[in-house]
Every structure is written in structure tokens, then in C-alpha cells.
């Protein structure tokens, strides 16, 4: 199922599952990721699944490219089990203090904000991967009418909780961070909790997420 395995530097395998971004390829990546994770192989010290790649990092004192490549090629990947899927609802407030780029989107997409919200809220999005910053989910796919490019000049600081759109994806900024996504609202929901070491992420790859619009009052009540 892996199309090609190459090396990324001297301490990682770069597993290529294809070039398209879709649920089918991503589910394969997640399956491999979960199978390798379960094996708990000594010397493998990180796995990074993404849309259509899986990077396997190893400790060069214990393993090398050839030994890890062999291990991965000989691994049994179970096809049968259904991927574990959680359904998660994320409340979002689109008050003008939060929807920083809604005007930009109205202009770029040539539709009203009401139409944008109508096409975004209540729809099911698949979590392809988490990362960049701790716990940030990359969700998709947005309808064609909602697909816009990143900001020409990224913000130096995107507020924590911001919900952003770019191309066919949506995400949530789990921390204040630089970033260039089009921000349409903000969630009071905690998405990443570092005190919960066994399960710090609310949203994990394979999960299904639905956003629900809330009022300013609901937002601040949730925050208290």
C-alpha cells in the first residue's frame, strides 16, 4: 500500500502513499500509523502521519534506514478493523471580534457571510491529521464554494481558539500562533490539554467533527 519508501535525512523513513489528498489514502496512512504504534518497536521514536505520507523517525544509535525499512515492509497491516472514529461537536462563535477574515472571504468567494456559515456549520468534516502546533486538527473537505487561499501576509499572532479555513481544509488554533488561515470564528472548547497525558487531543486522525454556531452569550458562559 505504500507506494515508495525513501529516507528523509539519516534518521527517518519517508513513506509515500500517493499525491492526492482524500479520505481513502489518508485512512491507509492512519492504519499504518496505528499498526506500527501498536508494535512498539524499540528504536522507533516518532511517527508522523499526514494527508498522504507517514514519516517514521528512529534513534540512529539503535536502528538505521535499512533495518527500519525491512521491519516496515514485513509488517502485517490489518485491513479489516474499522478505524476507531469519534464524533465531536465544536461550538464556534462568529461575533465580529472573532471572525477576523469574514469580509475577506466574502470578497474572495463572492458569497455572503450567511451563505458561508450555512455551508460550514452542521457539515461533517474528517480529521486527516493533527500537528504543526500541539493538537491542531486538519479537517476536510470544505465545499468548493468555501475554498480560498491563505492570507497573502500571514498574521504574526492568530488568537487561541480561532477557527480557520484554507483550500479544502478547516482547522482550530489550539494556541496563539503565527498563521495564515482565514479566520471565521472562535471556539471556547479546549482542544488540547497537556495535563491529560494519555489523551491530550480532543480531535484525533480519523475522527469526524461538526461545527455548531453559538452566540456571544453562549461563548462566554462556556468560558466561565
Amino acid at each position, binding site marked *: 500500500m505504500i507506494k515508495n519508501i525513501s529516507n528523509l535525512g539519516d534518521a527517518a523513513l519517508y513513506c509515500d502513499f500517493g499525491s492526492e489528498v482524500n479520505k481513502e489514502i489518508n485512512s491507509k496512512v492512519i492504519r499504518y*500509523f496505528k499498526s506500527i504504534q501498536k508494535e512498539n518497536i524499540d528504536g522507533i*521514536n*516518532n511517527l508522523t502521519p499526514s494527508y498522504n505520507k507517514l514519516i517514521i523517525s528512529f534513534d540512529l544509535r539503535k536502528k538505521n*534506514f535499512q533495518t527500519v525499512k525491512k521491519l516496515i515492509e514485513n509488517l502485517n497491516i490489518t485491513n479489516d478493523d474499522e478505524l476507531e472514529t469519534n464524533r465531536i461537536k465544536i461550538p464556534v462563535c462568529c461575533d465580529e471580534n472573532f471572525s477576523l477574515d469574514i469580509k475577506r472571504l466574502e470578497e474572495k468567494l463572492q458569497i455572503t457571510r450567511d451563505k458561508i456559515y450555512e455551508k460550514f456549520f452542521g457539515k461533517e468534516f474528517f480529521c486527516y*491529521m493533527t500537528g504543526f*502546533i500541539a493538537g491542531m486538527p486538519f479537517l476536510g473537505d470544505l465545499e468548493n464554494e468555501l475554498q480560498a487561499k491563505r492570507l497573502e501576509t500571514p498574521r504574526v499572532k492568530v488568537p487561541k481558539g480561532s477557527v480557520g479555513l484554507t483550500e479544502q481544509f478547516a482547522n482550530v488554533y489550539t*494556541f496563539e500562533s503565527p498563521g495564515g488561515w482565514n479566520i471565521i470564528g472562535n471556539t471556547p472548547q479546549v482542544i488540547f490539554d497537556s495535563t491529560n497525558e494519555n489523551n491530550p487531543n480532543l480531535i484525533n486522525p480519523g475522527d469526524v467533527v461538526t461545527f455548531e454556531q453559538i452566540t456571544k452569550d453562549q461563548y462566554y458562559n462556556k468560558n466561565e
Partner: protein
Amino acid sequence: MNKNYFEIKRAGINTTFQDQGRDNLYHIGIPFSGAMDNRNFQISNKLVGNEVNFPIIEFAYQGPLLKYFGENINFAITGDVKFIIKKKDNAIEGNCYQSFTLENGDELDIISTNKSVYGYLAVSGEFDVNYQWSSCSVNTKANIGANNGKKIEDGQKIYILNINKNLSDKKLNYINTKIENIRVIQGTNFDYFSDEGKKIFFEKEFVISKLSDRMGMRLEGSKIENIVDTNIKSEGLLKGVIQVPADGNPIIMLSDHGTIGGYPKIGVVISADYDKLVQLTPGSKIKFKKVELADAETLFKLYDLETQNLISQI
């Protein structure tokens, strides 16, 4: 029983608790972190009789000024660092790679690193820090690790537990050597760049920008032209990965890097050269040299052996 402590009279620029870092969290967006210069981190611990992976204090450029209260304790500083020990009636200029004793009321003034970025302070005891995912390493981005995931600040107290009472002086003859070329393996998107761009990457000098920190090192120089696409579908990153965004200036990912990125990867710094890379200061020139995977593996074995050798000499 927290009676041994440092009072921080000046925190310094970027002073954090670090250890070996944390594994197996890339998939949720948490990088390794850990001491930037792994060799100097391990040596500092050995010089005070600790296990090599004990928590230490890492500082950059200007270090902290600490006043010590408690029973006698040994400390050691590694890197290339200017520091002074202020006793009641005299002041001693300290040397790196050598243990010294602090008595109640002494001050340790870590003035600055010399033509290098990071230095390490280890003490013969355990810093009283909290651990997350088995590591105290501070990631200020996600506020993970010791000290609530934040830099050490002016005025705070740092407690030390389980002081080793058998204080013996230790020393190592070692000088940090500068590196002329940073060796790299071709990246997975090497062919995204024009022939001219590839040539520039391996033949021209780049200057390290001021916009460099524990997350990444930005370089400036001749622009590297992309002929395919200035974005890729976001995928995993590693420390040492060199990305080239649309502006043509390379960025090297360092220990606190974002775990996912969407810029083409032109190369990856080999593991053997990472400790030396992170010590290069803004304004220094850097040149890349291409090596093959097998050479990189051998070079790392040699580097690691050398580190183990240094540690066993202490």
C-alpha cells in the same frame, strides 16, 4: 525540605529547563524539544556526577545571574561561556568543563556565551521540576514541561533536591570546535528546485538571520529558485529538515519546530552535525556540503563514539 535553592536575580534571554526531550508525540503536534546541543548537555551532567539525562538549565547568549542558598553544591557549565563566581570577599572567573563548589550566599553570574549560542548549567543534585511525558523539557510554544512550560523569569526561586554529598572535583579537557561546512542529505523535494537553485544551495554561503530560535534557523543569501510548486501538501517535519518557502530563503527546523509543514524540503542536516549547527550565531556564514546516507550513518557513529569517549573520561 526545600532548603537548597537558587534565587534568579537576572533570568537571561532564553533560559529554560531541558533534558533529553520527549519521544513519540509528533503525531499530536509535540516536537522532541530537549537540550539543543546534546553533547554539551550530557557532559555538564557527568561533570557534577549526575546521570547524563538529568534536567539542566539551558541558556542562550546572555545567561542567568543566580544567588545560591543552602548546603555546598557543585556545578559545571559547558559550551563556550564566560562566567564569574562571586564569593563573600572575592570573585573567581570560572572555566567551562570544570566543576566548582557554591556555598551559601555565593552568586553565579553567567555573563555570556562566546561566539556560540547555547550553554548548559548542571548542579550536583536534582532540580525540583515537573515532568510531562517523562521529560522536563520546556516547550514555550505549547507551555509544556517544567516551570509551567515557560522560560525562567527574574525573581523566581529554583529548588534543588537530593544534593550529592560526595563532592569531588571533575574536569574535562575539551574545546568546542567550529564547523566549516554543514553536511546534508538531499531532501525529498530536491527536484522542486532549478539546476541553478541546487547549485546555489551546495556552493554558495548563507548568512544566519537574527530570526533564529529554538524552533528554527532562518538563512539569507542567494535565492533558491523553485520550478515546481512553492507549496507541498503538508507533511511531517524533523529537526534538521531544510525547507525553502516561496521567498527562496532556506529555514532549518530545530528542536522545538512545528511538527507539520508545507514547504518543499531541499535537504536534511545529518545527525552528526546537529549539535554544531545549533551553536552557530546569527550573522555567521554557513555552507552546505552534500553527503550520502551511508556516509551520514558512519559520521554519526563516529560522533556518538566521540561523545561517549568524552563522557567516560570524566
